[in-house]
C-alpha cells in the first residue's frame, strides 16, 4: 500500500489527519509538519500499525 496522508477539514475549524500505509512511527514523523503548520493538536489516536516494527534491510550478514 502506498503512503498517503488524508486531511478532512470540518466547517467548525477542526481538521482530522490520518496517515495511511506508514509503518510504525514513520507516520508520526511524516505528519508532524502539518500539525505544526495548522495549529494545536487536540487528540491523538494510535492505530494497530503504529506498533509495527519498521524493518530496514541492508543485505549484510554478520558472521560470528
Amino acid at each position: 500500500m502506498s503512503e498517503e496522508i488524508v486531511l478532512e477539514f470540518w466547517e467548525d475549524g477542526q481538521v482530522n489527519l490520518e496517515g495511511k500505509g506508514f509503518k510504525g512511527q514513520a507516520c508520526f514523523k511524516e505528519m508532524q509538519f502539518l500539525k505544526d503548520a495548522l495549529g494545536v493538536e487536540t487528540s491523538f489516536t494510535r492505530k494497530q500499525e503504529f506498533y509495527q516494527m519498521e524493518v530496514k534491510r541492508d543485505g549484510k550478514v554478520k558472521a560470528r
Partner: protein
Amino acid sequence: MSHYSEVAIELTDEGCLVAALSRLGFTGKVEVHKEAQALYGYQGDMRLQKAHVIIRRQHVGSAANDLGFERQADGKYRVWVSDYDVKYNKYDDAWMGRLKQAYGVEKARTEAKKKGYRVSEQKLDDGRIRLVLRR
C-alpha cells in the same frame, strides 16, 4: 495506517489568510498592511482597533463595520468583528469556522507542496473538504 490526529486550526499565515478570504468570496477586496491600520465604523468613524488584514465595511455587508485581522506578538491573528456584524451580517462562529476551514486547506496545500507532495482536493456533501497528499 498508524494514527489519527485532530487539530484546532489557528490563523498565523498572512498569505493563506488572504487566500482563505478569497475562498469565502472576498477576492480583490482584502487590504494587507505591514503596519496595523485603523478600522472604521459604519458611519466612517475611526475605531480604536487596528488590523494588518482588513476588509472594509462596504464589502462586509449592510450598515457594516470594517472587519480586521490583527497580528499578535505570538504570530497569531486576532479577529476584530463588531457585535452588529456578528448578529446581522452573520460573521458569527459558523462563519469563523468556515474561514478556519478555508485557511486550513490553503495552509496544508502550501506546506505539503513545499515537501514535494501531490495534493488532491475534494468537497464533500456534508461541507467537509478532504485533501489527499501523495508522493
